């Protein structure tokens, strides 16, 4: 597998949607290609950054408004 093909397959690879034989080819390529390995590491870092970021909370006034709505008392 060459870099161009890896880039085409990367979305499916990351999504676990690639057949096993192609996955193995991607992994062989990553093991021997520093620029593609950098890409893979950076995308893992991006994923970690996103998943460790705090989720914003629904503001309290909005929560109360929705609670009133669900109890049939508003809007």
């Amino acid at each position, binding site marked *: 597998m060459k870099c161009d093909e890896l880039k085409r397959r990367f*979305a499916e690879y990351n999504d676990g949607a690639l057949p096993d034989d192609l996955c193995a080819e991607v992994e062989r390529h990553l093991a021997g290609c520093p620029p593609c390995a950098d890409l893979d590491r950076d995308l893992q*870092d*991006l994923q970690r950054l*996103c998943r460790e970021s705090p*989720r914003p*909370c629904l503001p309290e006034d909005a929560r109360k408004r*929705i609670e009133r709505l669900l109890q049939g008392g508003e809007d």
Partner: protein
Amino acid sequence: MLAEEGDRLYALALRVTRDGDLAADAVHDAFAAALEGLGEFRGEARLSTWLYRIVYRKAIDLLRRRGREQPLEEADEAALAAEDGGGRAAAWARPPDELLLGAESRQALERALQELSPQQRAVFELREVEQRPTEEVAEVLGIPAGTVRVYLHRARLKLRERLSPHFRGGRTR
């Protein structure tokens, strides 16, 4: 249900609209619409998927009605990037190397996300942040699963380009 889903729905709406008031309105309007249409919920989808879909549509509608995308206010940006306030992992609980991906990286991420379309941001929020299955994200947005993968991949590449100094590959280049 509100306690469990409220924050997740708000996070999606905020990611799409990038405006706290619009996002809260989108969640409120979505619950109102869900109450009215509860009879139409056939149970084929999960309730959370159904609510996500309604919130996504409401957020897009509100954004369109406003007419244009607004930049995220600094306060909202800081709130999104904050270390505390319901965060999933306390900064002090992580080893020093991981602190490189700290508040500064999160602020850079929020800025970079502004460059994505609302639809790409929704895909990113649901798939990358919330880790919902691709098929569910496709159902929420009403697009094919392959398109979800393409949107996500393009979003990741664009964000990587903007954030590479914060990442391991970028630090060694």
